[in-house]
């Protein structure tokens, strides 16, 4: 019975268990555990120096973990050298071999496996066609554009049919427009190949757009693993709330509690009410309140009952198309970023205008300080 159950549960492609990496006295990766199901797009998002590159290099086999286990398709990879692992990696600067043409680059892995020349040629042709670059085999690496190189680098890995494809911030070197385009393309390539992608980035928008699941990493630990929606709308720690997406951060002291209703007073003296399931808060403790610019509305509320309403003046207007914001200074002098509605209302706001801000207590996130 148990055996039957085990067989029907699909095995995750990549499992990391308590993975730890120490450099001398510094712990770069600290007991990280996660698993990535077959065919999904998994992103590891974190600021530079959080240990995400070390984690990826351990999966690729360039660094060996100090502790923990790493399994790919159920097989432990501890002690297996990088050239024997069923994973391929797209490097940050792609690492295409400049001394070879595109065809030889893509065929490199197959040559190492001793595949026959004729077969290498057809398979290289096929994979280049799948990434949308038919007939570039004879070209040199420097004859391709940034986006084309990107696709060649993916093709070079995919031709080996790896179980897991690792990507180390490959979009970092591209300009903004191309990066936006490649995000969509990367996602569709992943769907077309149906291969497990593990993608590391410090760019939250890359992670949010492409991933099925995101792990937010900080100081060598995973702060949260969840879908992009969960990570954005229900961040489980203060770090995640501050790192993913824009947020106004207010440090405040809890003055009263009634169930999930928490009343706080900020250091500047602004009173607010927050609805939070967060435990660890108590009267007199300090908390961090995160408010996304888009949950704060301008103008008088239809129903002020239970809303946090503030009077303020416009400090500055930051026009950025659909992402325009205004900075509002309330009567205590603290500043708040407020997103302008995309309908174009409030387009005439100018510095010094008096406005009313209001937000729903259920939309704020609140975490005890020091969590």
């Amino acid at each position, binding site marked *: 019975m148990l055996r039957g159950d085990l067989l029907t549960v699909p095995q995750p492609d990549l499992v990391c268990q308590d993975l730890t990496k120490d450099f001398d006295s510094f712990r770069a990766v600290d007991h990280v555990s996660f698993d990535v199901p077959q065919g999904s797009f998994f992103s590891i998002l974190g600021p530079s120096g959080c240990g995400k590159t070390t984690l990826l290099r351990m999966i690729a086999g360039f660094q060996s973990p100090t502790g923990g286990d790493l399994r790919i398709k159920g097989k432990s990879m501890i002690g297996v050298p990088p*050239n024997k692992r069923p994973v391929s990696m797209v490097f940050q600067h792609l690492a295409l071999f400049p001394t070879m043409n595109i065809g030889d680059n893509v065929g490199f892995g197959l040559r190492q496996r001793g595949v026959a020349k004729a077969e290498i040629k057809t398979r290289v042709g096929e994979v280049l066609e799948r990434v949308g670059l038919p007939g570039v085999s004879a070209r040199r690496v420097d004859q391709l554009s940034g986006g084309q190189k990107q696709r060649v680098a993916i093709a070079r890995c995919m031709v080996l049919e790896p179980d897991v494809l690792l990507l180390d911030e490959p979009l970092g070197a591209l300009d903004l427009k191309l990066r936006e385009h490649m995000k969509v393309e990367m996602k569709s390539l992943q769907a077309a190949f149906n291969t497990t992608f593990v993608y590391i980035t410090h760019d939250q928008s890359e992670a949010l757009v492409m991933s099925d699941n995101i792990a937010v990493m900080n100081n060598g630990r995973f702060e949260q693993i969840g879908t992009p929606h969960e990570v954005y709308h229900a961040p489980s720690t203060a770090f995640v709330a501050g790192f993913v997406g824009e947020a106004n951060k207010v440090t405040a002291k809890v003055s009263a509690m009634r169930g999930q209703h928490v009343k706080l007073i900020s250091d500047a003296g602004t009173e607010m009410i927050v609805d939070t399931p967060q435990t660890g808060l108590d009267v007199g403790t300090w908390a961090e309140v995160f408010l996304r610019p888009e949950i704060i509305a301008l103008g008088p509320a239809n129903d002020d009952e239970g809303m946090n309403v503030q009077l303020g003046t416009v400090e500055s207007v930051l026009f950025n198309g659909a992402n325009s914001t205004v900075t509002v200074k309330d009567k205590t002098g603290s500043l708040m970023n407020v997103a302008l509605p995309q309908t174009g209302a409030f387009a005439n706001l100018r510095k010094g205008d008096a406005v009313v801000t209001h937000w729903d207590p259920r939309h704020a996130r609140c975490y005890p300080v020091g969590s």
Partner: protein
Amino acid sequence: MVSDTSRLGFYLLLAPILLWLVLLIILPHVGLFVVSISEKIGPREYETGFDNYAAFFTEPLYWRTFARTAIMSILATALTLILGFPIAYYIAKLTRGRTKTTLFLMCMIPFWVSELVRTFGWMILLRETGVFSNVLQYLGVVSGPVEMLYNDAAIMVGLVYTSILFMVVPLVTTLDSLDDSLIEAGYDLGGTSTSILREIVIPHAMPGIVSGCIVVFMLSLGNYLTPILLGGKDSLWFTGMIYTQFITRFNWELGSAFGFLLLALSSFVVFLGLKLSGQSLSETMGRS
């Protein structure tokens, strides 16, 4: 006005290299060539002709000596490459920071001492009453003193030792510019150490290998001191032969012809080497 000053500056900067080329390279060669095409037909009687060149090809000792010099130089170049490559790879790829500078400096330090002194060092080690001979006798490996000088192996050791720096420096420079992620990508795609060396490292280092080989080959071919001191009287090195013609036999005409042939034939060997390795000189010199 401005263009006049800048033009003056350009010529002033160009002057030293022009002087160097004209006075020390072109002029002596013109002189050599003029001397080499004059044949002595009697006391103070000369005729223009190519007999001196013909002598090189008709007298087996001359061209055999040249062939021997060329082959030994090629061998010395190959040995230098085989020894220098791992050293350069180690310095460029496996060390960083202070260790790298120290190792690089340690390669250079022997070259602060004159070549003559360094060659005498080898003589102290290799001669019959030298260090190696004494150690071997002390260990009981041999019963009597052994002479390790005055043979081809001693010449080879000396040549490799004198020229290895000129191989290591260009190799370190080119290998330094090889991105580590290319090597990692090679491993990641299933490559082994040998295949990565063959398909990634060596093609990348090719300009350094070629320029190092050209310099080492030319240095060995034109070396005089090392073959004479370590190889003895019978070393039969082509530069020794030129020296003999000029100094011992006062036959400047034949000596000049030899000098010209050395230039022509060494250029030919380099050309052949470039063709065989599929490299071009301008590309090599431009990249390394």
